[in-house]
């Protein structure tokens, strides 16, 4: 989610960094609703739509801790 960024900058950034996931534009409404007052921030939302985790700093997505966390969340009962 990118707040108040120009579309052409987002497209360029996505290409440069080979990002395959969608980047959504936010006019600040979404970040305000989530109470995001600093960036980067990451929210983990489970299949019921509940926020089950929040991280307030940059993360290494390939770290063991992160993989363990995602695996744990994916194993949650349906």
């Amino acid at each position, binding site marked *: 989610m990118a707040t108040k*960024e120009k579309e052409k900058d987002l497209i360029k950034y996505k290409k440069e960094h080979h990002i395959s996931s969608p980047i959504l534009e936010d006019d600040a409404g979404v970040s305000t609703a989530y109470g995001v007052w*600093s*960036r980067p921030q990451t929210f*983990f939302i489970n299949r019921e739509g509940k*926020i089950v985790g929040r991280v307030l700093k940059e993360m290494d997505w390939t770290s063991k801790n992160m993989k363990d966390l995602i695996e744990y969340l*994916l194993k949650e009962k349906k």
Partner: protein
Amino acid sequence: MIFILIFGFLGTRCAAPKEELKTYPKDYVHSLTEINLEKVFHENRGLKVMEENATTVHDYYRGGVQEKEEGERLMKESGWGESRVHLEKSNRFFRVVLKHLPEDEAYRNIYGNQVVIFLPNLLIADNDLKLVTVYKNLKNDNRATEASADGQRYVAESLKSVKTEWAYQIKKGFEDALPKK
């Protein structure tokens, strides 16, 4: 399936403010149309901050404002007991904020070009002024007197940093709320 929502990217690379914060002369009094409670409520609505999930100073600030809004809503419905719970909780949130950021700021740049009204001292004073009414309705005059004394200290603290019409209005409210000795 889980959904991972990341706020960041370009903003993360470039954290420098895009706009300069406006500066004001020391004795400038911010008008009620410029700084008021409704604006503060509006800036802090959204995802509810739970006490157990609050991690940053700004979480506590938002939590304090959200509890205040709920307390005031209940007060309008004469739910004095419930209103008291929320207004006191709001004050607890704001006191955590003051441990880290003790001064009020008319406008605080919290990230990039995101600016918010930041008045924890004044918001405690405003809560205390409302708590005077709540305690009176709960027939607890001692607590009403304490809230008045506390609130007057906080409004004075707020005025040391930022002058607002709102603060002067609260100050007058305290003077009118309790009988003069």
